[in-house]
């Protein structure tokens, strides 16, 4: 949204998952405990994101994209290192609430209830973000600043505060996602590494700065990867690189990208 490609997001996501290991421990959590863990994860990581914005990212908005990329990569390394110190380097597991550990039969196929819940939560947040950006005053100001920061200042928008809050909000969502993903993976400090590349692929294919683009692109990437696994197994894990390459060749700004941000990046 802000034209910031944020590598650190991956490590923030991992912190969310690690927080889940601390809050939940090795037991099967009840639903309230699990929701509590999700909230704690979102708050802890959100605050961490605010600190990162204020100390590092804020100074670099006016610099070039490569500086921002390097700085956020450095933050990724620092946060991962600090997480290893705090939580150790052996992978941990988190259980999902027992109620959600069964399968649900949909059209004859047995799908894990928890996966369905994740999809539903993802959809709810996508709609929520869409409404926030398109219906609220805060969202309107975010979009205005994303388009022209200088003009935003000139008419009196508090661009610093908006960017601070956006960064915090994005981080909190990463923390929440970390908690939610924890039961399905083996949790360690470098958990985010594998996701961050895929997320970048999604963002680049969808177009920088476009939420709708990201949404379409995430489905495209997911389905392509699934089809590849089924029909061309030797391509699995490789499909999003191919998609990125094709999109960059044919449409460098991505499916629905903002030409201005795309060109600058």
């Amino acid at each position, binding site marked *: 949204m802000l034209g910031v490609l944020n590598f650190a997001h991956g490590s923030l996501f991992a912190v969310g998952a690690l927080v889940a290991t601390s809050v939940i421990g090795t037991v099967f959590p009840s639903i309230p405990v699990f929701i509590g863990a999700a909230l704690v994860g979102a708050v802890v990581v959100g605050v961490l994101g605010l600190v990162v914005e204020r100390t590092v990212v804020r100074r670099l908005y006016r610099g070039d994209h490569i500086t921002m990329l390097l700085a956020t990569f450095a933050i990724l390394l620092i946060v991962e290192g600090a997480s290893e110190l705090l939580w150790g380097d052996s992978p941990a597991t988190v259980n999902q609430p027992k109620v959600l550990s069964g399968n649900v039969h949909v059209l004859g196929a047995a799908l894990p209830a928890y996966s369905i819940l994740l999809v539903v939560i993802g959809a709810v947040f996508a709609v929520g973000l869409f409404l926030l950006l398109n219906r*609220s*005053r*805060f969202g309107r100001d975010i979009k*205005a600043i994303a388009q*022209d920061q*200088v*003009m935003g200042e000139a*008419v009196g*928008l*508090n661009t610093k505060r908006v960017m601070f809050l956006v960064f915090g909000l994005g981080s909190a969502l990463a923390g929440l996602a970390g908690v939610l993903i924890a039961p399905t993976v083996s949790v360690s400090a470098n958990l985010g590494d594998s996701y961050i590349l895929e997320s970048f692929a999604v963002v680049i294919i969808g177009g920088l700065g476009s939420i709708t683009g990201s949404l379409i692109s995430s489905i495209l990437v997911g389905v392509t990867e699934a089809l590849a696994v089924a029909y061309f197994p030797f391509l699995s894990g490789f499909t999003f690189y191919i998609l990125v390459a094709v999109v960059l060749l044919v449409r460098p700004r991505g499916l629905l990208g903002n030409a201005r941000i795309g060109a600058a990046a």
Partner: protein
Amino acid sequence: MIALDLVGVDKNYGGPPVVQDVSLSIEVGETVAIIGPNGAGKTTLFGVMAGETRATKGRVSLFGKDVTRAGARHLAEQGVARTFQVARYFLEKTVEENVVIARLAHQSRYRNLVSKSPRSDDTVDLALDAVGLSSARRRPSATLSHGDRKSLEIAMALAQDPSVLLLDEPTAGMGAEDIPGTIELLKGLRASRPEMTCVITAHDMNVVFALADKVVLLANGRIALQGLPDEVRDAPLTREIYLGNSYREDR
């Protein structure tokens, strides 16, 4: 009463000064035009008044309050609105949304992130009316003609109900046929808002002489001359460094 007061303002970007020892007092309700050849420092001086550029030395006050280090947003909050040489506005928004954003910008405190985006009000309607864009309010701003973009910027400035309006080259890039309309528009604004102080930079002398109460000639970053429009126009120095000797005959 003095609206905008500059005392001994210098600005350099690490090299030689772009603006040097500029002192200028602008009365409430006055319209001052800043003229000068390219590279004279007009845009930099303008940036200092708008808070976008920070003076290296000297003092800027707004209604007696020191705003030398205030920054663009704070000046906007205190009633300074501006337009840009190349019109700036939020491209992906409609005409009306642009004006609404400008109208409400400095009230946004974000205590409640999900509060609904407000719609237009009388001030927005008046601003759109004043520049003749009422009928285009639902249009995407990116589809406006060049002249209308300039008008939209002026509407955005008016929607902030400014006490000081800074117009950077209000007719830059306009076709000759659009310029008289813009001059009339600005004259109308002056007449309807006698309390509003106005600073204009312009290359077009028709704009300057139609609107300005006072003209400041800038050369090499310094004020070479200031006075009533006729005085400045007729001064030999103005012809020498700016208008050229043929100016009189052209008129």
